[in-house]
């Protein structure tokens, strides 16, 4: 029974990693941009929510709802003013600019909030649990997983059921011809990054309420997100969820054997998939 419990915890943890990964996947899918600051942006979102909670005394969920439009505008502006300039055939500018951004965000947060561990208090929810058959499941992990599913359903609806989604896919296919349809690729990219930042904020809410965080943990989140995307296969959001679950289960199983092996086990799972299925498990057109 302890193994079933471990695996269930791992699956739910995978929901958190899928939330980390969805924004990364969205931006890469539309503009082939790999944002090395992605993890730091999640941490930035967590600090924003924390500030709203402590300064305004808001409930974390309400604080996240306030943070979402702020983060959307930040992402939209960042893409329009900075990142659009880096797009092109050369991979160096986007990588190095976002790497610089990662360092800037980390050290800005260190300056503003110190290196101390922080936590967003979710009150009684933190310890609440419900029984699912023979095992007991934490409400927060369950909410995280359900949010991940909801985000993926929402993004898929946006992609396949709206004019904006069509414009995203068309621009990703062929920005020049998209221009002939009246689409401004730069604005579409800004919109996509804005939406990715909304997802980042949702991820930040759960990052901040489920465990301690500090300004330096961003890169590790980028890495988990990246692993989930690669395991799932580029272009498939459900694949990304599966990738997150695989990392999550590998980590909880590893931790069950030896607590020091938790993180390593996730990386090993990623490397195994990379060795045998380098295009991922659910790649489109693969």
């Amino acid at each position, binding site marked *: 029974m302890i193994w079933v419990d471990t695996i269930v915890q791992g699956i739910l943890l995978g929901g958190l990693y899928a939330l980390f990964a969805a924004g990364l996947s969205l931006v890469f899918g539309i503009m082939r941009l790999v944002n*090395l600051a992605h993890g730091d942006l999640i941490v930035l979102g967590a600090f924003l929510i924390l500030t709203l909670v402590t300064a305004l005394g808001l409930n974390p969920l309400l604080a996240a709802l306030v943070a979402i439009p702020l983060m959307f505008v930040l992402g939209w502006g960042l893409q329009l003013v900075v990142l659009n300039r880096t797009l092109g055939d050369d991979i160096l500018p986007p990588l190095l600019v976002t790497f610089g951004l990662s360092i800037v965000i980390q*050290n800005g947060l260190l300056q503003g909030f110190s290196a101390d561990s922080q936590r967003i208090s979710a009150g009684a929810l933190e310890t609440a649990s419900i029984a699912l058959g023979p095992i007991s499941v934490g409400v927060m992990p369950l909410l995280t997983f359900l949010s991940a599913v909801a985000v993926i359903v929402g993004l898929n609806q946006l992609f396949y059921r709206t004019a904006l989604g069509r414009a995203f896919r068309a621009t990703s296919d062929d920005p020049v011809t998209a221009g002939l349809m009246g689409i401004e690729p730069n604005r579409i990219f800004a919109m996509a990054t804005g939406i990715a930042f909304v997802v980042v904020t949702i991820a930040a809410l759960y990052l901040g309420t489920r465990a301690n965080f500090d300004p330096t943990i961003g*890169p590790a989140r980028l890495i988990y997100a990246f692993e989930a995307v690669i395991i799932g296969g580029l272009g498939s959001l459900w694949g990304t969820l599966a990738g997150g679950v695989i990392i999550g289960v590998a980590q909880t199983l590893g931790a069950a054997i030896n607590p020091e092996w938790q993180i390593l086990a996730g990386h090993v799972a990623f*490397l195994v998939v990379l060795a045998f299925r380098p295009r991922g498990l659910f790649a489109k057109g693969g």
Partner: protein
Amino acid sequence: MSKPAQKWAVQTRTTASTVFAVIAVLAVVAAFAAPFFVSRSVIQDLFFILTMLVLAQNWNLLAGFAGLVSVGQQAFVGAGAYAMFALVILAGFDPIMALPVAGIFAALLAVPTAFFVFRLDGAYFAIGTWVIAEVFRLVFAQWKVLGGGTGTSLPRGTTHEMVGVPLVKELFDVKSSAAADIVTYWLALGLALATVGFIYWLLRSKRGIGLASVRDNLQAARSVGVDASRLKMIVYVATAFGTGMLGALVYVQTARISPDAAFSVTDWTAYVIFIVVIGGIGTLEGPFIGILVFFILQNLFADYGSWYLLILGLIGIVVMLFAPRGLWGLFTGKTGIQLFPIRRRLIGGQLTTSSREDTHG
């Protein structure tokens, strides 16, 4: 012109480069002689500069010339350093004798690493190298004999008995620790010269033409990939060797290791990237300029802690956006001066057929 010979010839040398070559030789001689004239703290500063230069040249070869944008070079710094510690502590090696072995160890690790990361395209390669570095850090943290997660130190006095240290101690009439600093400084200087020399040689060799075309026409060659995979593999393994040996040397000097420090992305990759980007990516000269700027900034702002890195990050972003060829690129764009000429120019000859009399004249 006493000899009007009009043969075609490929020339890479320029007047500026010839003048520079003379100055460079003098500078190298001065650098080797430095311990005779300057204080121990200056030697330590110079050691730091040289180690960053070696890392920067290696990363520049990878990212600037071969298009392999790695953010995981700390994997090889740490691997080399741990290999040296293992050889010294477990096998009783002299630390200096352990250096080349540490480099080979890092190069050997680069082969399976390449198997994984070369499966990832362009931008994803970058994060892939970061994952590998994390895996290395976590695995070496499991090595209990070498202190596990908290790390360990070299046995007391090890560096005082290294090859050359007693001799230097006698020669300079200094304490063993100061003598060890001088020896590691000379080794860093030698490694820096070897690294720059190797890259210069590589870029001027036939193989290097492929890489140089990557440099000269950044976008075209990088997207086409000149004899890509083989060349990239050679560069990847070679830089792992240099980076690993450098890592071992740094930790001979500090004599204390921990996984977090040895595999630090900030210390071994972030600084290095900023040095190369600010100086001028894809040029041999760029890292030299970048290191000067970096060293000055560090002395000015290092006390400000995270402000310092924040400013460095911002400068990196601004340079990448507005002067993607860095300070050296701006300079060479205005003057056309190249100190390490690696661009081939066709000189002499005539577009019309030259007569035999001319050629033998």
